[in-house]
Every structure is written in C-alpha cells, then in structure tokens.
C-alpha cells in the first residue's frame, strides 16, 4: 500500500477521474455562471456584454433583498434548531430505553425526497381538509388559518417542514459524535461527582466542538441556498412572501428568461455562501480539544 501511494503517477491516476468530474460538473459551471452574469442574455439569442450592470441592478433590487432576508431568517432558524437536535442527540446517546428505535424514527424524514415531503406538508396545511386545521376546528377554534396563502405566516409555515426534514440528519451526526466519546472520560467525571447535566455541558459538548462547527456551517450555508421544498410548496408566493435567493434566481433565469441576471444572482449567492462559511470558521476558531 505504501509503495503504491509513494508513486506519484499512481496517485495522479487515482485522483484524476474524480478531479475531472468535479472540474467538469462544478468548477466549469461556476466559471460559466460568473461569465454569464456579465452578459445580457435571454438564454436563446446572442449575448451582449454589459459588465457589472447585472450586479448594480441586483444591489438595487428590493425583491432580491427581500428574498435574501427570508433566506437569512431560514439560516437563523436552522442554526437555532441545531440546539434542539443536539439536546435530542444527548438524550438518545444516554442509556435510555428504545434509543435505537427513536433514532430510526428521527431519521425517516431524511430518507424521503424533498418533493414527497412537500406534497405531504401541502396536505397537512390544506386550508379545509388539512390535519392542522381539522385539529384546530375540533378543538373549537373558529375560522380558517390559511397557512400557505397568508403572507404573514407562510414563511414560518414553510420553515417547519424544512427544519423537520433535516432533524434526522443532524441528530445522526451528533449521535455518532457523542457515541465516540470514550466512556472512561464520562465515568471519570461521574466519579468526580458531576451530575448528568454537568457531564453533558462540560465534558461532552467541548469534546464534539469540531463536529458542531461543521453542522453550523452546513445548516447556515444549506439554508442560504435552499430551494426544493419552497419551490414545490409555494413557488415563492404569494407574491414573493416566501421567496428565497435560490427560488428568485430560478424565477429570473427560467421564467423571465433573464439568464444574465439569473446567473448574476447565482454567482452572488455563491459569494455570500463563501463569505459566510469563512466568517463562521473565523468566529468559531479555537483550540481543538482531544481526548487521549
């Protein structure tokens, strides 16, 4: 094995297929998107170079900033929900009855496709036949809440399934990390007289800090570029009340046939995600705690 790995040609041979795919499918399109973003292009006819016009339009586009605000809210919500996921994972990783079964139950939403989840929640939110409204009615609540068509609540209504969708994913990550903490450390703390809460906060959490950082980045960046559930459930509506950056980009490029502007939004979105990732890394930088 060492022999193979020390041979530079062999390394190149192993790396090349994946590298070629990543380049062709990810980096080339990114460069192209950046290039289209400088053009005025309807996706069909000739392109016209307009320099940074699309970007100056972007800065002044209130609809875009509204969608950016919604995406930011989603990022905030998903970041906060990480705390709840972590709490669940802490409980599950303790020696409680049925932890195995619960873990599987939490994981199920992750196995469903976004479109299936969207269809499911459309039924749940249906104004007259939906589960939520039927339940409210049976509790004696008067009037109908129009979950997906009331501009004041549509955003919250759509955040709930998104957060629900990813619960299993993050719980699984935290669970795996927590299970990796050597029991000798936990036992030592217990002998020293720490109660379960102290063990969780003072021993376990610091030990999984590196994993937590990764999940924060995943949650925030994932939210900023979120698209699928919103596209299926509300299509950004009513009148942009649930639009996020990615759905706005789709709208501009594929509905208004403004590929130049759509590409500019896409590229800008990429920049935002990069900056945010860098920022989170900077803010959470600190010494790694190792157990050994």
């Amino acid at each position, binding site marked *: 094995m060492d022999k193979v790995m020390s041979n530079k040609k062999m390394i190149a041979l192993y790396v090349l297929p994946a590298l070629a795919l990543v380049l062709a*499918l990810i980096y080339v399109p990114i460069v192209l998107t950046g290039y289209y973003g400088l053009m005025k292009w*309807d*996706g*069909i*006819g*000739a392109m016209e170079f307009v320099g940074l016009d699309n970007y100056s339009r972007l800065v002044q586009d209130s609809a875009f900033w509204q969608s950016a605000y919604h995406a930011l809210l989603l990022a905030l919500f998903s970041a906060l929900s990480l705390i709840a996921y972590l709490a669940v994972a802490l409980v599950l990783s303790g020696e409680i009855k049925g932890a195995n079964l619960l873990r599987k139950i939490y994981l199920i939403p*992750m196995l469903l*496709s*976004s479109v299936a989840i969207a269809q499911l929640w*459309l039924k749940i*939110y*249906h*104004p*007259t036949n939906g589960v939520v409204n039927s339940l409210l009615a049976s509790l004696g609540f008067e009037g*109908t809440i*129009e*979950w*997906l*068509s*009331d*501009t004041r609540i*549509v955003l919250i209504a759509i955040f709930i399934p998104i957060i629900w969708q*990813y619960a299993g*994913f993050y719980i*699984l*990550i935290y669970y*795996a*990390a927590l299970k*990796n903490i*050597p029991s000798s450390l936990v036992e030592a703390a217990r002998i020293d007289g720490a109660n379960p809460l102290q063990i969780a906060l003072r021993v376990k959490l610091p030990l999984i800090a*590196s*994993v937590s950082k*990764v999940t924060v980045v*995943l949650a925030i960046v*994932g939210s900023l*570029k979120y*698209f*699928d559930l919103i596209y299926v459930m*509300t*299509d950004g*509506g*009513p*009148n*942009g009340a649930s639009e996020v950056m990615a759905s706005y980009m789709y*709208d501009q490029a594929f*509905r*208004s*046939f*403004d590929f130049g502007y759509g590409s500019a939004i896409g590229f800008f979105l990429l920049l935002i995600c990069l900056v945010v990732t860098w920022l989170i890394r900077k803010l959470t930088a600190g010494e790694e705690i*190792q*157990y*050994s």
Partner: protein
Amino acid sequence: MFKKKPLTVAMTVALASALALTGCGSSNNNGNAAGETNTGGNAPAEGNAGGNAATAEKVTLKMMHLWPAGSSKQQNMIVNDIIAQYQEANPNVTIKQEILENEQYKNKLKVLSASNDLPDVGMTWAAGFLTPYVKGQLFAPLDDTLEGGLKDSFVSGTTEAYAVDGKTYALPLELNITPVYYNKAIFSKYNLEVPQTYADFQKVVETLQSNGVAPIALGNKDRWTGSLWYMYLADRLGGPETLKNAINRSGSFEDPSLVKAAEDVQALVNGSAFNKGFNGLSNDEGKSEFMNGKAAMYLMGTWELPNFTTNESVPQEFRDSVGFFKFPTIEGGKGNIDSWVGGPGVGLFVAENSKVKEEAKKFVKFFVEKWGEQSVTKAGVIPATKVDTSKVQLPQMYIDILNELGKASNITLFADVQMSPAVAQTHLNMIQALFGKEVSPADFAKNHEEALKQEAGK
C-alpha cells in the same frame, strides 16, 4: 485506539453531508440530462446533410413533440398515425420523433437553440414564448404554407397569435377557450339560474356563500388561474381592445376600466367568492374543490372537457351535473358575451436552418390538416382548425362549445402569453397580490404600466 475515532466521526459527517448534497443537486441533474441528450440530437441532423436538397432522395425529418405515450396517450397515437400516413404517401421520407414531457421539452428546446440545433419540425407556444426564438432567427416563416386555402381552415385569430411583425412562424394545433363550468346539482338545490348579467352572477355568489357553499373553485398558487378572472372582468368592462392595447403599448394599463376590473376582483374576494386559502393552492387542488362538489363554479380552459364528459375515472353522476356558461356581461361595460379569453395551445414550427425546410413545411401542412380531422374525436382536443359539428360524433358539451366557438366575436389571448416573459412575471405576481389584497387596484395598474413601459424602452 482512540486516535482512529476522530477519523470515523469525520467519515460519518462526510458521508452524511454527501447524502444531503445529493438532495440539493437534483435540479442540476436535469440540466445535465438535457445537455447529454443534446449530443444525441445531433445525429439525425448530420444524417440530413447527406440527403441535401434533392427531395426525391431519402429524406429524414426530425420532429420533436411533447406528447409521450404515457401521459398523453391519445395525442401520441394520433401523431404516430399521421406520421405513418405521411410516410406511406411519401416513401422517401422517414420521420424520426423525439418525445419529451412538457417542462423537459421547454428546457431542451432552449438548449438546442443555443447551439442552433433545433429539430426540423417541433412544437412551440404562441406570442411571448415564440418571440425570442423568432428574434433569434430560429424559426422559419410559414406564410407560403398558409397560402392556397390553408389559412381559411383555421378559426380566425388563431394563426395571428403566432405572428411576429406580420409573419406567421407556427401553425396552431390546439385551441382553448375558457367557459365558467358550474355544478347543476348545486345550482338547482338553491334554486339558482345561470347568470346572464354580472349583477345576477353576484347574487348567485351571495346565495351560495350564505349557504356555506364555496361559490368559486380557484387555485391561485399557479397565478394564471386568477388572471383568467381578471381578464374577463377587464374584457366585459372595457371591451377586448383595452387590455390588448395596454399590453401592446398603444394604450395604458391605467385605463379606468382596467382599474375597475381590479376593484371588482377584490370585491369578489371580500365577498368570499372563492374557496378558502386559494392563494396557497395549486390549480389541481382548486379544481378538486369543484370536482368533489364543494365549490359550485370553476373558470377553466376547454382542456378540462374530457373530465366532464368522457373520462371514466370521474364519477358519471358528477359528469352529468356539469354545465357551462359564458362569462356574464356587465351593465354599462363595453364587453360582448361572445368574447372569450383563451388561445391556441401548442403549434408546429419549422426550423429556419433545417436542411429539409421544404419537406418540413409540406409535412407541417399535412399534419395540421390530419390533426384537425382526428384530434377532437379521438383525443378530445379542440383543434385550431374549424370543425364541422354536423359530421362528428361527440358528447353534447363538445358540440355546444364548438358551436360557441363558431359564434365567438373575439378570443383574447391569455395575458401571460401575450406579454413578454418578464412582464408576464410581474403580471402574475400582481394577480396574486391583488387576490391577496396586498396591493390596491390603483397600484396594481401602476405596477403593470411601469413594467410594460420598461420593457418597451429596452
């Protein structure tokens, strides 16, 4: 031993995130698929190069359409039948089909045009969809094909929807108008008559509403559904020209009748005329309110006719109880009751850079004629060519609609099709805002006016 563990954690994270990423990447995959099939699309075009110009030689025509055997069985069968007939009559011609589902079809058409690789014959939609392709000189004008009587066989006004600067670039296959369907059983239960005037209509809405029945089924998440209501009100108030002129910039969108139409929409909303939560429901969900008898009326295109006549999966009892009426006239308004909102659906184009353009035009002409003979009887699709109702066997509702079509004084093309794509998006968003009472009728008109002005200034 402990040293190994952080690695496992890292692996789990990496694996899990890879799983999550595949979910996000699904939209990309579509694009790739289109890109890959694109190269496949080149092959027949190259084949054509060999058969150049000389028509007596072997000719391969490539046709792309959007009726897969799975979801549009009847249409697919008719296409195959017409192609078989044509190949029999012209043994030197081979027609190759490529079939894609609606959305994929649109995407692929765009990809192919970017590389100037359109099929010889394909399908397009009217006006706003067609214009960029014409401006990009991708479609061939078909005026010479229309000469010699073919033009007269079309319902008047249908080919014009495919015209840019006086030249026609596609021949329509489908034609749809939008009647108001109503549930006769519900109407008779509350002793209601089909409304002749808008005042009658308002009374019907009021009666139904006070009896706890949703008067109108609407799924306005799709937005064009609400646009139909606005368009009819605009037509009945200001006549067909007002809206048309506002869009083609010879008039203004801030015309009093267009503002009044927006006010009337909000009056309907205020009177709870539509089912609850309509702005969050898709057209299919809105339709189901009508189909399961919860709502009494439904304004929709004639493409729904099979559901109310021949579709066996819809209960017979329901099908028997569906009728239709024309959108009532408004007192003092300029509109005529025989003016319809509607328009041609897909039409056939011939690619400008097709190597076998003449043969393709010949085929398109043949196709349109044969399609007109078969589509309504076999697939329930109303063709854009005139149908002689005395010669065909059809359910009564079809006959009635076709007769109405014969009497039609005007067909106003769907607003979002008339407008350029960017303006159409403004229109559709504004419609949703208007129905949701987030925008005042005056601002509704003003926003349209600004979007149209900006587009015209480009």
